[in-house]
């Protein structure tokens, strides 16, 4: 078929100035798209892949060791204490859950909103979501004093036992169990369903029997028939509809862990929307952190274009502004609400730095002022650099800012948890928290686990939804000058 020369377009395209910027650049043919994307998973791994994988896998092993040490010896190997009974454990949990938000938002919400640019990033973002949920799920489980009971039916999992004891349904921690597990399940299904056409493609392209068998097994006999497409699209739409409210619910429920309590700094009605905005903010940050190196390492610049990056920067700018607004509103309410304990917390535990605000309010510097101001700078100040188009189009710059967003969002959770706990109602309880090496290595290990899973995903599955990207190329559009059954390339 390749010998057939392309015929001249029959339909006049719109004038160039009205033409939308194409989602796949350089007028790449469909076959190029298949080859380029499937090629990453096929054949030999890239040179950089093995070192990256070995380091990540080693880190994962280290995390497993740390967890084994924690469980065998006691929670005391972490730096937790009274009054700071939660610190890095829940910080990491909320951090990873937040990261897990971008994937579903991109896949489901943007799908429902017919944002076609999502197609080139949704697969990897969803994978990232899943892996982030895996990382997130580890922390609340291992942070319990007696893990063996936490996983036992009847304690957290409702189970009709002979004593008639049920879990405490009023506890936000139990809601977490349901929210996170639901989110994880739906995200996995959504991701898998979206993978099926591509798995069919991978099966068809597979060279070895083993690959053929496994891709074939998971492709569910996908043949690309109209009927398959019809069912597939219905299923995908339904799952998108199911996943959309979950984007809002999961982090709202995670925020209830704090909002439902009565600790100043936690007991805040603004938390659910603020957490969701923050989650999307951090999720997009992480997507950018992953995709910017990925697109250049895998030569995907034509599929994940600068426009994609630009759009994601705008989402970060938007959600970053929401988060900034929430921070300031929280502070305002602490003053306006007239609760001296809450105001004390904001001023004396967070805002008061040794240089400007401490002297301004005539109070001692807050012990964790640096954490608060790290958060403020990373989350409130840096996103506003994205007002400038020039900065948005510098990949290096965007990547650096995305790291700042990640750091800032980790510190946001650290601030909420540790600075609220360490000095609460009664001054006699006050104390400080410092992490131990086990805290730190477990957290580092969770990044390694995340990267290990992502690298494995890259090695075995198409990192971009091939069929969907093809669907948004001009070639796929019968009304487009390049589209229709014009023979030749697909």
């Amino acid at each position: 078929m390749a010998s057939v020369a392309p015929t001249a377009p029959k339909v006049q395209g719109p004038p160039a100035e009205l033409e939308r910027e194409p989602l796949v650049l350089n007028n790449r043919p469909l076959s190029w798209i298949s080859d380029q994307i499937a090629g990453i998973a096929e054949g030999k791994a890239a040179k950089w892949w093995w070192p990256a994988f070995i380091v990540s896998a080693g880190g994962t092993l280290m995390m497993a060791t740390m967890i084994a040490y924690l469980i065998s010896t006691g929670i005391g190997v972490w730096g937790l204490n009274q009054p700071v009974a939660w610190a890095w454990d829940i910080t990491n949990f909320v951090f990873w859950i937040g990261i897990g938000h971008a994937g579903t938002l991109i896949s489901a919400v943007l799908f429902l909103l017919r944002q076609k640019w999502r197609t080139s990033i949704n697969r990897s973002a969803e994978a990232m979501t899943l892996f982030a949920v895996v990382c997130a799920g580890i922390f609340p489980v291992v942070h319990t004093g007696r893990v063996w009971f936490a996983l036992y039916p009847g304690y957290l999992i409702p189970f009709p036992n002979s004593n008639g004891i049920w879990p405490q349904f009023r506890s936000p921690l139990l809601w977490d169990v349901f929210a996170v597990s639901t989110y994880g399940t739906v995200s996995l299904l959504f991701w898998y369903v979206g993978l099926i056409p591509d798995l069919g493609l991978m099966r068809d392209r597979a060279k070895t029997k083993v690959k053929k068998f496994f891709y074939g097994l998971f492709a569910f006999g996908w043949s690309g028939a109209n009927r398959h497409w019809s069912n597939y699209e219905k299923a995908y739409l339904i799952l998108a509809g199911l996943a959309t409210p979950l984007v809002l619910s999961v982090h709202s429920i995670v925020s209830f862990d704090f909002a439902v309590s009565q600790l100043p700094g936690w007991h805040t009605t603004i938390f659910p929307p603020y957490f969701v905005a923050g989650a999307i903010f951090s999720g997009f940050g992480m997507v950018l952190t992953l995709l910017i190196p990925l697109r250049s390492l895998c030569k995907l610049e034509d599929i994940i274009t600068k426009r994609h990056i630009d759009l994601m920067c705008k989402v970060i700018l938007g959600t970053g502004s929401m988060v900034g607004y929430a921070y300031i509103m929280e502070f305002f309410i602490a003053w306006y609400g007239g609760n001296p304990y809450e105001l004390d917390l904001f001023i004396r535990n967070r805002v008061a730095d040794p240089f400007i605000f401490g002297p301004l309010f005539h109070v001692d510097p807050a012990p964790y002022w640096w954490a608060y101001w790290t958060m403020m700078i990373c989350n409130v100040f840096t996103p506003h650099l994205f007002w400038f188009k020039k900065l948005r189009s510098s990949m290096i710059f965007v990547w650096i800012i995305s790291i700042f967003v990640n750091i800032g969002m980790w510190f946001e959770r650290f601030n909420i948890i540790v600075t609220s706990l360490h000095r609460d109602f009664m001054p006699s309880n006050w104390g400080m928290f410092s992490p131990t090496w086990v805290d730190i290595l477990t957290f580092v290990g969770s990044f390694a686990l995340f990267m290990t899973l992502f690298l494995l995903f890259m090695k075995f599955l198409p990192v971009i939804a091939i069929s969907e990207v093809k669907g948004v190329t001009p070639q796929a559009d019968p009304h487009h000058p390049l589209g229709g059954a014009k023979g030749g390339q697909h």
Partner: protein
Amino acid sequence: MKTIPPQCPEPEVGPKYWRSLDQVAETPEFRNWVEKEFPAGASELSDPVSRRSFMKLMSASFLLAGFGLTGCRRPEENILPFGKQPEGYIHGKPVFYASSRPTKSGAVPLLVKSMDGRPIKVEGNKQHPDSNGGTDIHSQSSILDLYDPDRSMGYRKVSKDSVGTITRSAATDVLTEISADAAKTQGEGLAILVQRSSSPTRIRVLADLKKKFPKAGLFVHEPVDPQVATIGASAAFGTSVRPYYKLDSAKAIAAFDCDFLGGEEDSAVSIRRFAKGRKTSSASDEMNRLYVVEGIMTVTGINADHRLRSAPSQIVPALAKLASVVFSQVSGFGAFASASSALSASFPAANEKWVTECAADLVAHKGAALVLVGQGQPLVAHVLANAINVALGAVGQTVEYLPADDTAFGSIADLAQQLNSGKVASLVIAGGNPAYDAPADLDFAAAAAKAGKVVRLGYYEDETTKVSGWHLTQAHYLESWGDGRTSDGTLVPVQPLIAPLFDGMTELELLARVAGLDTVRSYDLVRDTFRSEARSLFGITVEFNLEEEWKRFLHDGFMANSAAKPVAVRLVAPNAALLAYNVPAAPAEGRFELVFHRDNSVDDGRFANNGWLQELPDPVGKYTWENVIAVSATTAKALKLKITDPKNQRGTENVDHTLKSNESTVGNDVVTVTIGGREFTGPAWVQPGLADNVIAVALGYGRQIVGRVGRHAGFNAYLARTWAAPYFAAGAVLKILDGKFAHIATTQEHGAMEGRPIVREATLANWKKKEDFARNWDIESHGAFITKTPVSTAGGVEARPAGIYQHPYEHFSSEKGNLTGPRSDRRQILKSEIHQWGMVVDLSSCVGCSACMVACQSENNVPIVGKDQVIKGREMHWLRLDRYYAGGIEDPQVVTQPMMCQHCENAPCESVCPVNATVHDEEGLNVMAYNRCIGTRYCSNNCPYKARRFNFFDYNKRENDYAVAKTDARGSVSWFSTDASLYKGPFGVDKNKSAEWEIIKLGKNPNVTVRMRGVMEKCTMCVQRIEEAKINQKVKAGPSGDVQVPEGTFTTACAQACPAEAIVFGNLIDPESAVSKLRKHQRNYEVLGFLETRPRVTYLARIRNPNPKMPDAYELSFTTKEYETKYEASPFEGHGHGTEHAETGEAPIHGAAAEMKGEQH
């Protein structure tokens, strides 16, 4: 007779019915079915064995053996049933025995709880005429000493390089030998060193010994000797007497360097009597007033209404000043007046008004005034104090003089001299640890080496063991027979609760053997003493049944009416010898005064291996596991001490900002103190309230040879203590060691209340101004519905707004209306209308002695965690004693507050626990189900009181080095380290299998679970005691159905131990119970009441009683001032918008049981 129904003939036709199961059972079908079906598998068994069935059965049994049967195994243990059950013994039921703990100057009457033959808990003997059942920390913690795996476990023969074990009889042979040698020389060359004791048997045995060996030397050594009060009184009155204070009758008390609520002897008695005079039920009540002049910040100092800082060396001038003012107003003391004005020459004029007004107040309260002088003060101060008390008309009113023992003892300095002169052939050390705590200039260890033979009786193998030839194991007082006299002179027995665990010897036996008496068993000795005591008490002529009286003595724990009769005293005329004293120069910068004081926890070092005491925070400083080198803030500034530990300094108003820092993870400076060529090194500490230019150090730490608990704890201040200057010495030099820091383990890192009304205070005048001031603070003063008086509506009680959730302990019956009707139509019903538990803590009475903390630890098997864990903030105390400073850092006011689980009715912890591990019971307790707990710690986060405690490690499995905290290169504790090497989890030694666990576990309360790691725990309000009381009442009630536990039947461990009776526990349903009444008290308030947690533990606001004429008088207490500054409102005025409500003085008993019950129709 049972009537047998006539046989009913079977109908010939029609359907056949069966009339009974028996009838059916007769049918062949049924029989067949039974045979075939029942028992299952039985028919298979009767089959000849086939290969198939054999395999089936064998595999099934292997499976069962593998899974099922292991669970059925019983633990292997040797059960030795009683051949004959001892009379009155019921397994699992505790038995109480009266006994007493001997102290230096007396004895603490006790009631000891014994469980299956092992003492597990110590309580005060309430029946004793001079006790209310309250105790002190040392009595409470003595249980731990008994089961200390580090205690001396056998008799030793010590040579230069080895310690060999000998039998008890070999040890007694040594004593017999010494006695035989002494007999040859009339005791020449025999020296006996004892500790102070009130035991009449010991007095008798020593008298016998002295009679037999007139040339033997008797010496006494106490590092901190309370005897000076007796010597002072005897000198003042010219007869052998000792003062006995009746603080409850005193309305004005002036304490001069006298920590009678803490460091002095018999603090529990003093606290009880002091608190009695401090309790007020209404604002018009009279209340005592406490003036304190002292150098260090003591428990007494923190309770003072007026406190004057003065170096201990300057106490005599201050006292003399007071004396001269008093004597100028009371006639007949001219000679004393002139002597005292001479002594007061160096008294600074700046403080003159303070002392003058204090004296005026004392004189105004003539007959109800009292002056006290501490044991660290010279004799002249005691003589003067006695004279002042006579002048104030105190004798017979607030102080009585009781006859004192006049056995003549030599001092340890005399002994050292004799030893050095080589005259001592045999030295017998009957208890004590002189090698460690004797004055450094005597060099006791070297002197003892010059004795021919050294035999010592010791509870631990310690520093003195090393210098002795023979170490004899001492029996614990709970293993011994003995006796003593409480401070009022009542004879009390020391009764063993358990056979000596390591075959220890008592002091009495040792002395009797040395004396070569015929009777050596302590039981016989004590009984003999009792016989003569009883004879003299009942009179020679009166016949009495010795056996019955002895039984009564042991049963009651005291001999009734044996209290000493007060001696009528007359002051001897003052002479130069009596009042001669060279007042030392006041300390100044660069010439510091070094003050040695008894440690609150380990005393003079004798309790150094007691983990409960080591971990018990100092009542003022809140540091644990060590002693510190304390200086005042001004002195610290002058010395340029780097105060990086802000724990006590932050937040007070007038604090110099250079003292503040947030680097709480960095340690304090380590400093070396040198005096007269002797030195010691330890961590510096800034103590608010300390006199300037004074360096205060506690004795008792830095032990060289001690068990695993006390090892490495603190530094040894004895190294610089000399015979001449045992309590304060001038001319100390402090040097900062560059680059060395120490991290102090405190249980409270922040000392200021930040203006928050956690502890609410008023002066007596404030209280009169607004009677219900206690509920007019904080956010609740603005809300009409919170903590305010419940508004009764026509139909029922509308106490407080309904919560979102159904109240955990109440529900509505539908008797009167339907459940959807208006709330007022419904009747509130408590889930239990028999018991609703509650507690009230009177902050006015609480002095902060911490006895409650140790009592709680003992009752509830609360583990100790070690210094490193305290630094990390993981101490496990269920009950803590918060201490807040207010005002300036130099002269702060201090408040204390016992804080434990508040048993909130709307408990924030309960709704957040995902597994339902913490729930409410029907009697209003917030209970923990340890088995359910998975350890999410959310409950702790949501607890506004932070009263919950988490087992971060298996603290019961900790092995050693409790007092060590891993430090980094700078000497401060490395947060980064996990310290988990001390808690190896499953890799650690399984303590359950170790031999020492066999000893340790004997001390545990069998009614309370020993918690494992990963579990949250907290105060249960001694639920085991509640349940025991309920069961007992049920048994007692029988068919009468009266199962309500009567008031006063039992109480919690903390309330029982409290000598001040500040903690009151009881049933809120009973309107007559003390706790119900106190909850209605004007001063009753809830901590953080605005949170609507509805705590079942409430507090009575603290009242201070300042003298408006004093130069340091204050209208508002400092905490109130802080509050008013912060909130810009006063609790003594119509606060905010709160004037329209809270007019009645009724209780904020919202929801609470008694109220509701009253309202039911």
